């Protein structure tokens, strides 16, 4: 018997005991109809070859281990960024259970969202009654200030019309006529979670700016000199938005953060559950029309929102998840140009500190090869940072990146001597990445939690940056934007590099001459 009351063995130790090992071996040989181990080994090796890579890249229909989620997840992410707002997803209820779990696993926070719980009868007759009852229940039970509606693919396939449904629900008294119920169609079979972010945010702005679906006069823009800030779908939203606020305040900029979910995904444990916390006030969301300009940190999260904003007369500027010195320089200079406010002295010092840190450590990063995967903007931002560190972002893969993104990436590579052998892979998945890592190995992999399977299979050490990160805690609390955010990214990368050097030099009397105390 291996288990022990004094020192309780967990799953990772318990099953290594001889009783269990014997049991599992018997199970396999007697009952599992296993393949010959030599055959398994042969296929395992074959799957590492260029020949396999070629077949793998010839795939046209099958997706294996994609690095993207579906639209409504992005819509829910946006909705909770508004004050007192409950996301309401029209369609099957299982989807909502999934979004809530997914967000809770990443942020280690509650994630509130309701469904209209459509079933077979709604598939036949449409989900109008689900909308009518659902809005009434949500409104009464959770007393939100706003209910932001999006859709699952079920509602999209049967063609439910949100605008008409919400109107009817209001007529039936589900919620007061003047109550804010912005909406966005977010079909899961178009784009990804970043598309859903875009659609939902546009839906909310459209609601407030363009006459609340025909129930109020359209707002007339009177420019007020403020700027609007959009973070995009961002696993680091908690740390990043707070860092941005700090920067705006340092520069004396008047701002509105749109979809500010930095508080709702970081509530205190003090005896009270806050279903809602912080967020862009509805008043600010409406008044955002009067801003001088709107800045998006992630171009591919705002492809529809920014033209919409621009159409209302504002200047717009989009970045690609800026990380590091030059990207932050560009961001701050744009901010300064638009607002007329000089870049704060304190930020100049932070810049200098980041450059200082990069100079101190560059010898350990310079020339190292990296593979990166994630959302299109994140990939761009990280690749640009690596280039300015003298590293080579050899494989940059984005399942939800498109051709235009790939061209933009190639442009970035062309701009640096370190980008010479780097390539962008739009629309590919992590099984493609596996082939890339086997056939053209790199030193480090940057990606989300699912990258750990690639690390296990290919031995490429994983640096966890992205969404979701389920198996490491609290990193979302630290910014990756601004010079200080750049510092955090730098330290994350360096920690892994040093850990690997130590791991590779720690065999006593064999390799530990290089087990240096100073690096």
């Amino acid at each position, binding site marked *: *018997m291996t*288990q*022990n*009351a*004094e020192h*309780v063995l*967990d*799953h990772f130790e*318990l099953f290594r005991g001889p*009783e269990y090992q014997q*049991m599992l071996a018997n*199970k*396999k040989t007697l*009952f599992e*109809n296993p*393949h010959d181990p030599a055959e398994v080994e042969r*296929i395992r090796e074959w*799957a590492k070859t260029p020949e396999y890579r070629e*077949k793998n890249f010839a795939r046209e*229909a*099958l*997706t294996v*281990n*994609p690095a993207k989620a*579906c639209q*409504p*997840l992005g819509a829910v992410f946006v909705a909770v960024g508004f004050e007192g707002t409950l996301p309401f997803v029209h369609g099957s209820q*299982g*989807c909502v*259970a*999934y*979004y*809530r779990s997914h967000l*809770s*696993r990443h942020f280690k926070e*509650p994630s*509130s969202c309701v469904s209209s*719980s*459509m*079933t*077979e009868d709604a598939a036949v007759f449409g989900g109008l009654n689900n909308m009518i*009852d659902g809005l*009434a*229940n949500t409104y*009464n*039970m*959770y007393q939100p200030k706003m209910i932001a509606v999006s859709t699952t*693919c*079920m509602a999209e396939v049967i063609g439910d019309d949100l605008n008409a449904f919400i109107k009817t629900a209001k007529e039936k008294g589900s919620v007061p006529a003047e109550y804010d119920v912005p909406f966005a169609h977010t*079909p*899961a*079979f*178009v784009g*990804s979670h970043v598309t859903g972010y875009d659609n939902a945010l546009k839906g909310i702005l459209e609601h407030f700016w363009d006459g609340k679906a025909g129930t109020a006069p359209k707002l007339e823009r009177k420019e007020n000199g403020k700027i609007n800030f959009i973070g995009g779908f961002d696993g680091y939203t908690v740390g990043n938005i707070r860092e941005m606020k700090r920067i705006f305040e340092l520069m004396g900029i008047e701002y509105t953060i749109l979809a500010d979910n930095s508080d709702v995904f970081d509530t205190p*444990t003090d*005896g009270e559950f806050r279903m809602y916390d912080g967020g862009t006030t509805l008043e600010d969301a409406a008044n955002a029309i009067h801003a001088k300009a709107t800045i998006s940190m992630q171009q591919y999260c705002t492809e529809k929102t920014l033209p919409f904003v621009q159409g209302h007369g504002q200047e717009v500027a989009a970045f690609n998840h800026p990380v590091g010195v030059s990207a932050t320089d560009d961001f701050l200079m744009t901010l300064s140009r638009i607002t007329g406010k000089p870049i704060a002295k304190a930020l100049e010092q932070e810049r200098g500190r980041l450059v200082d840190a990069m100079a101190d450590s560059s010898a350990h990063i310079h020339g190292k090869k990296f593979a990166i995967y994630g959302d299109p903007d994140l990939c761009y931002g990280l690749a640009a940072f690596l280039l300015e560190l003298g590293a080579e972002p050899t494989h940059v893969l984005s399942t939800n990146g498109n051709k235009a993104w790939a061209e933009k990436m190639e442009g970035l590579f062309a701009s640096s001597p370190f980008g010479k052998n780097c390539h962008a892979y739009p629309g590919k998945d992590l*099984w493609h990445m596996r082939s890339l890592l086997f056939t053209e190995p790199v030193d480090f992999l940057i990606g989300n939690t*699912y990258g750990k*399977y690639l690390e296990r*299979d290919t031995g490429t050490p994983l640096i966890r940056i992205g969404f979701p990160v389920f198996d490491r805690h609290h990193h979302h609390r630290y910014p990756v934007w601004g010079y200080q955010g750049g510092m955090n990214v730098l330290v994350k990368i360096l920690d892994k590099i040093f850990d690997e050097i130590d791991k590779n030099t720690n065999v006593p009397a064999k390799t530990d001459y290089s087990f240096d105390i100073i690096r």
Partner: protein
Amino acid sequence: MSLATTESVAEIKARNKQLIDEVLKVYPEKTAKRRAKHLNVHEAGKSDCGVKSNLKSIPGVMTIRGCAYAGSKGVVWGPIKDMIHISHGPVGCGQYSWAARRNYYIGTTGIDTFVTMQFTSDFQEKDIVFGGDKKLAKIIDEIQELFPLNHGITIQSECPIGLIGDDIEAVSKVKSKEYDGKTIVPVRCEGFRGVSQSLGHHIANDAVRDWIFDKVNPEAKPAFEPTPYDVAIIGDYNIGGDAWSSRILLEEMGLRVIAQWSGDGSLAELEATPKAKLNVLHCYRSMNYISRHMEEKFGIPWCEYNFFGPSKIAESLRKIASFFDDKIKEGAERVIAKYQPLMDAVIAKYRPRLEGKTVMLFVGGLRPRHVIGAYEDLGMEVVGTGYEFGHNDDYQRTAQHYVKDGTLIYDDVTGYEFERFVEKIQPDLVGSGIKEKYVFQKMGVPFRQMHSWDYSGPYHGYDGFAIFARDMDMAINSPIWKKTKAPWKDAPRPSLMAAE
């Protein structure tokens, strides 16, 4: 803290009834009427818990439930390790459920084993408009080329499949023929079917019956020599290794486990199960269907068991042994005796720290009742429980064998109800899922996820009980719960003091 210990059963019942009345007030009239049927206070001696169940969730209330796809792909089929399970439809369903359920297995992932991978047809608009059958056929070809050691394929339908009229059965048949009778199983588990995960379990069970059992050649040479002691473990998903810490006990008592359904399971094990002499069933809810089918068709008896906590384990080992001869009966006694010192040591260590503590549960499958005995072994009391997707037969079993008089029962609880109940009852521990975890922890209430074992486990079997006890102690007696109030704001809560 525990109100229950200082109040009489009558007082508790009155309080719970009042609580139910209070929460119902928040709903519009029609909804209150519907929800009232799902909430009750258990009366000892009744044959069920007096609640309606397995009915549609109400729109907009924040149900905790999932869907049929979750029940089929996520629960029943997903853990079958040597088959590739295609999440057929848009990308999300497969993505959110990717490796999230901790169904442990042994195998070379991506080569001969595929559990923690996400295979999807990633439907695009054109697939919705023109149908996805051709794409599905191509996907199967690509799987065959890139994953040649797979033993079979299942097609897990997401919502659009049933709505756009795809014929996945036809594609499966054609492709099966093309690949020499390969096992290809179409599963109609679209998320909009039924009212919860539960119908997905049923559909998945039926798919095993129709596409695996019915295709096994009865003339084929058996892969192993049968023995009189062959059993199959049904309804254990090997979360954190649960099925392994169960299997070892069955084998130690002299039985031979020929199949695991479905944690760490394989196609060969599914196919061999009709040769079992007894099916032992842990999760009744998700796999009673196939057990009943095997009883009717193959004459295999089945027996429910409970491997949470030493009392129920011993009871279950004896119950299982009763189907066999004295050799097995003696084996069961030997196993119980062997682990007694471990159990005594675990209880001696943890019971003093947990005695009298109260628990509220809301989980799926078998757990809202099955874990009660394990808590009681530690001197704890379950004061409220409910099923995410139970049926009346679950509530019958709960009433007849598990819950105490006055227990608060809540079926398909809404977020609002659950928060109010916990706030008022102030249990020492809540056991539920990831969506509930942080809500209650923010409230300062210790919590354990009782779906995923909070990334711990196994909790089944004797080895698992040691971990269970350690985890409950760790949750309840963590020093952090004394720090939720800033010391400069630390005033006693008058209402609670008065109640005690």
